[in-house]
């Protein structure tokens, strides 16, 4: 009944308007539109009242008549081409020609005729036959999209070519120039096409991914594609880092080694710019005033954590180098695992990079500290742009364009859930079962939705979810605290026991972290099942968010810990000591006096990241091996339990998350260990083959439904979040962090950024000022804000469109009813049950007062539009008005007084 009163309200609006201004006809028209709109609402409401039988009174014969209508004539061409060209705003004259012929009742009987017809029509289309590349491309597309067997297409193409060439010969004298142009551009088009084809045929891991997708479907394939994407991205970064940072550094080292006899050099202060665009000067002080004690041969070789290069600071320490020089580190047996020892003196870590310029040629100087900053910054920016672009594209395709038709979930399940790429019988069986379960679940969900839950139960559900979230967050906090305590105690213990760095000691922490990263997400997966999220996708998302939080907590604590120790003056002694332990014992005596000079926290942190990456790799490999052994052991077993099933399943989301974790490690460690991209690259490559082997040989595909497109977007968004956080952390450290004073490219500066400020004078000041301005938090926030606004705008536009779609949909429904009604009428006329309607008749038929003659038609019609007495209970105005739509020409005069 509620809807009833509402209906009246809706209907009243236009009515009042009419009574207000019924003088001019344009107003009248306007009100008609309103009336119509209001009626649309009425229609729909009535439809929801399940009175559909009233509308669907047409059946049987009438229905068959309806099929004869042109719009229902789903001819082979009609549907596709109108839609294609309609959506792309392209005219297709040839198609109109064909349709016109059809409308005239001409349709081909034999295949030859059909070919002839199409060819003729296409030839008549000027745009299609135009002699340029656009025409050629268009022809190709039209032929490709034609719903005809290949044989027919071939025939059509041959005819078209023949006609075109004869046509060309006839008009050759006129357009020789054009012809030349055409041939040239056509050749260019073909070359480009073949190059693209070659890239397509030989793209990285093309065959492997094909094979995997063939056996396991697109879900598993999407994991491997993500892996490939990260591989290519990291490869780019590796090239940049190696090209602009590693090579110069190695060259500089080589250069120093060969021309070392001198101990002290005046660092030449130049303003010359290299071809790379960096111009190089001494970083550590004002131009021309600073003397840098350059590295003696021995110090360079030790490099690593303590390189006592003295600096422009007031206290010049040149002392300890002498004692240390003879201790060039040898490669220890465990070094490759811990990343300490010998590695500390390689270019793997921050500490080894030099802070001064070097020159291979005269007047060309390359400043490594600047290069260090710019290369790392560039790497971050490239990552950011590439991934942001990807996220935006995915978001646009999979959410903004699509989201508003979420109602169509059943349709999607039915029409696009079969994965045609599956070739394995086993995979097919699993897919069948998964589709069955999914449809069943969806149906139950839909049915249970109809009976709404009580508010008490809903409240309880919310409380449980909140509680679980609180528990998870608190335990994450505790975990973070525990990690912190462990790091601290680990370092204290180091001091007491004086364990050598070559032992397993440093491996404990990364091992624990890796185990946490692998085990806790499983726990999350179990927890989320208890929580009672009804929609599986929500379950997945919640687990994802928690896992990412976990990773961020762990890494955040790690970086934060080292950072605090670097900044906090009280703690330096401790860290210092620990650091010394990693070195040589006798150095410890000196360390007291050399606290600041010796300590290089960046390198230590870099080592942690190295260890995390390596240990993670080994743990994964061991796990895969264990699974393989398990598989072999249980292969002969006939009854396979749930655990068996669980262990041998390829969990796409967990594996993808693991990739993201790896990538996050890379981003977090990039500054401290600039060669992480190389490590990750190697790791990804090996992982690809390991995973491929295990997937093809013994794992089973995930039985849960995997909506690749949308979940991929979520994964990329998560990647982006971790990247942005790493980037911000990097920015924070650059601006606020204390650079180690004795090692690395930024030695001698209090904050990292100071080195750049010092260098920023004269001609480059502007550039650097702009640069620093961009880096300011406010500006970054502003840029992010603008991005958000843009996304918001795009989304609102999409929402607007969705609204429009709704309106049009209603309109469409109305039109269909109109059509049905008219058909019914014509049918009656044909049978002679209804007199043909002259205008006068219509006028007479419409208002009940003036023509009580045709009551049955009237009721039918009114029930068709809406029930009269329902809509207008109060007889403010006479009913006739509601038929105005049908008697447009005559209605206006009736409204005038």
């Amino acid at each position: 009944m509620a809807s009833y009163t509402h209906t009246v309200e809706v209907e009243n609006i236009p009515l009042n308007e009419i009574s207000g201004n019924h003088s001019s006809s344009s107003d009248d028209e306007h009100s008609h539109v309103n009336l119509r709109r209001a009626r649309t609402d009425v229609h729909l409401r009535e439809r929801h009242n399940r009175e559909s039988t009233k509308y669907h009174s047409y059946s049987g014969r009438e229905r068959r008549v309806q099929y004869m209508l042109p719009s229902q004539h789903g001819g082979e061409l009609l549907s596709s081409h109108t839609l294609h060209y309609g959506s792309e705003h392209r005219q297709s004259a040839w198609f109109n020609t064909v349709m016109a012929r059809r409308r005239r009742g001409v349709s081909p009987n034999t295949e030859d005729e059909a070919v002839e017809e199409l060819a003729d029509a296409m030839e008549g289309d000027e745009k299609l036959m135009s002699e340029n590349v656009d025409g050629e491309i268009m022809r190709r597309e039209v032929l490709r999209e034609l719903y005809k067997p290949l044989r027919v297409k071939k025939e059509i193409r041959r005819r078209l070519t023949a006609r075109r060439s004869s046509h060309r010969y006839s008009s050759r004298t006129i357009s020789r120039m054009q012809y030349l142009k055409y041939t040239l551009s056509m050749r260019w088009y073909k070359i480009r096409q073949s190059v693209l084809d070659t890239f397509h045929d030989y793209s990285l891991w093309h065959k492997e991914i094909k094979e995997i997708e063939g056996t396991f479907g697109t879900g598993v394939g999407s994991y491997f594609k993500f892996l490939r994407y990260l591989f290519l991205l990291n490869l780019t970064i590796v090239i940049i880092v190696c090209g602009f940072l590693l090579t110069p550094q190695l060259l500089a080292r080589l250069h120093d080694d060969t021309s070392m006899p001198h101990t002290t050099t005046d660092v030449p202060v130049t303003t010359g710019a290299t071809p790379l665009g960096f111009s190089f000067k001494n970083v550590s002080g004002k131009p021309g005033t600073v003397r840098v004690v350059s590295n003696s041969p021995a110090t360079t070789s030790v490099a690593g954590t303590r390189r006592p290069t003295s600096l422009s600071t007031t206290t010049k320490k040149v002392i300890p180098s002498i004692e240390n020089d003879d201790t060039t580190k040898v490669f220890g047996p465990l070094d490759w695992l811990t990343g300490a020892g010998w590695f500390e003196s390689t270019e793997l870590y921050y500490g080894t990079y030099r802070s001064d310029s070097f020159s291979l040629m005269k007047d060309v100087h390359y400043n490594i500290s600047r290069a260090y900053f710019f290369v790392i910054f560039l790497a971050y920016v490239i990552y950011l742009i590439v991934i942001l672009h990807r996220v935006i594209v995915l978001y646009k395709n999979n959410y903004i364009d699509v989201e508003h038709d979420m109602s169509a979930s059943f349709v999607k399940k039915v029409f696009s859930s079969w994965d045609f790429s599956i070739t394995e019988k086993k995979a097919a069986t699993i897919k069948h079962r998964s589709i069955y379960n999914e449809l069943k679940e969806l149906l139950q969900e839909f049915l249970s939705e109809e009976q709404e839950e009580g508010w008490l139960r809903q409240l309880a559900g919310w409380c449980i979810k909140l509680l679980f979230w609180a528990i998870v967050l608190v335990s994450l906090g505790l975990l973070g605290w525990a990690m912190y305590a462990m790091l601290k105690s680990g370092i204290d213990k180091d001091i007491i026991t004086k364990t050598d760095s070559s032992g397993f000691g440093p491996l404990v922490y990364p091992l624990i972290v890796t185990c946490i990263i692998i085990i806790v997400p499983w726990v999350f997966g179990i927890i989320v099942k208890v929580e009672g999220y009804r929609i599986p996708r929500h379950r997945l998302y919640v687990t994802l968010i928690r896992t990412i939080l976990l990773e961020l907590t762990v890494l955040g604590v790690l970086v934060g810990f080292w950072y605090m120790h670097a900044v906090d003056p009280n703690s330096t002694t401790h860290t210092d000591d620990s650091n010394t332990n990693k070195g040589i014992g006798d150095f410890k005596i000196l360390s007291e006096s050399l606290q600041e000079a010796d300590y290089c926290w960046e390198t230590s942190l870099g080592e942690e990241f190295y260890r995390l990456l390596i240990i993670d790799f080994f743990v994964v490999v061991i796990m895969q091996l264990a699974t393989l052994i398990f598989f072999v052991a249980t292969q002969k077993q006939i009854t396979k339990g749930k655990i068996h099933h669980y262990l041998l399943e390829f969990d796409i989301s967990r594996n993808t998350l693991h990739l993201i974790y790896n990538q996050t490690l890379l981003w977090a460690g990039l500054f401290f260990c600039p060669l992480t991209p190389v490590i990750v690259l190697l790791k990804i490559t090996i992982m690809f083959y390991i995973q491929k082997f295990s997937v093809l040989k013994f794992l089973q595909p995930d039985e849960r439904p995997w909506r690749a497109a949308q979940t991929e977007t979520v994964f990329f968004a998560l990647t982006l979040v971790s990247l942005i956080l790493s980037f911000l952390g990097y920015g924070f450290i650059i601006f606020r962090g204390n650079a180690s004073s004795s090692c690395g490219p930024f030695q001698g500066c209090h904050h990292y950024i100071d080195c750049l400020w010092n260098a920023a004078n004269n001609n480059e000041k502007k550039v650097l000022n702009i640069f620093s301005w961009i880096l300011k938090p406010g500006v970054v926030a502003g840029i992010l804000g603008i991005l958000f606004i843009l996304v918001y705008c795009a989304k609102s536009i999409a929402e607007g469109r969705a609204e429009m779609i709704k309106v049009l949909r209603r309109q469409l429904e109305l039109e269909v009813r109109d059509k049905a009604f008219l058909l019914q009428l014509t049918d009656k006329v044909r049978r002679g049950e209804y007199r043909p309607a002259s205008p006068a008749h219509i006028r007479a038929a419409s208002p009940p007062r003036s023509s009580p003659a045709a009551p049955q038609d009237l009721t039918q019609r009114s029930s068709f539009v809406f029930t009269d007495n329902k809509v207008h209970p109060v007889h403010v105005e006479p009913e006739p008005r509601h038929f105005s739509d049908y008697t447009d020409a005559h209605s206006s005069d009736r409204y005038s007084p």
Partner: protein
Amino acid sequence: MGQGNSQFTEAELEEYQELTYFTKKEILYAHKRFKNLALEKVGHNRNAKLPMDKLLTLPELRANPFGERMCFIFSSTKDGDCTFEDFLDMMSVFSEAAPKSVKAEYAFRIFDFDGDDYLGRRDLEETITKLVSPQRFSPGDMEALVSRVLEEADLDDDGMLAFAEFEHVISKSPDFADSFRIRL
């Protein structure tokens, strides 16, 4: 060496390339696959017509519940037997490069079991049955499912889906283009 190269001239390859969504290499590969189904016959006549049973031994079609339908749709004689060109046509439509609209058109034909240019209730039931194959829905569930599908997609309320309606819904499904794909 041959790779079936001997059976096609460059011009023919070019023609095929223009009419399908394949590169030349892929066309040759497709022919290789086709030839392997019946070595002698195809070796003799490269465009030989293979019976449907033969085609269905291809793993891509064998595991597919709609494999038979696909043969029917793409067969130029409409009896399920396919020549190489028909086969190439099929693979081209299912290739990665084929646009969504083309895929949608053929998908519509595949799901239209009775061939009346509409997806009626019967067609939908058949589709769902094939999708879940060894499992089975109770008549009531099936009824509810079909009704839901129609309610969502049937814009003009005539109790079945015309192509325009089908394409409209399919265009909203981001997974469709991914799933309607065969990797040869």
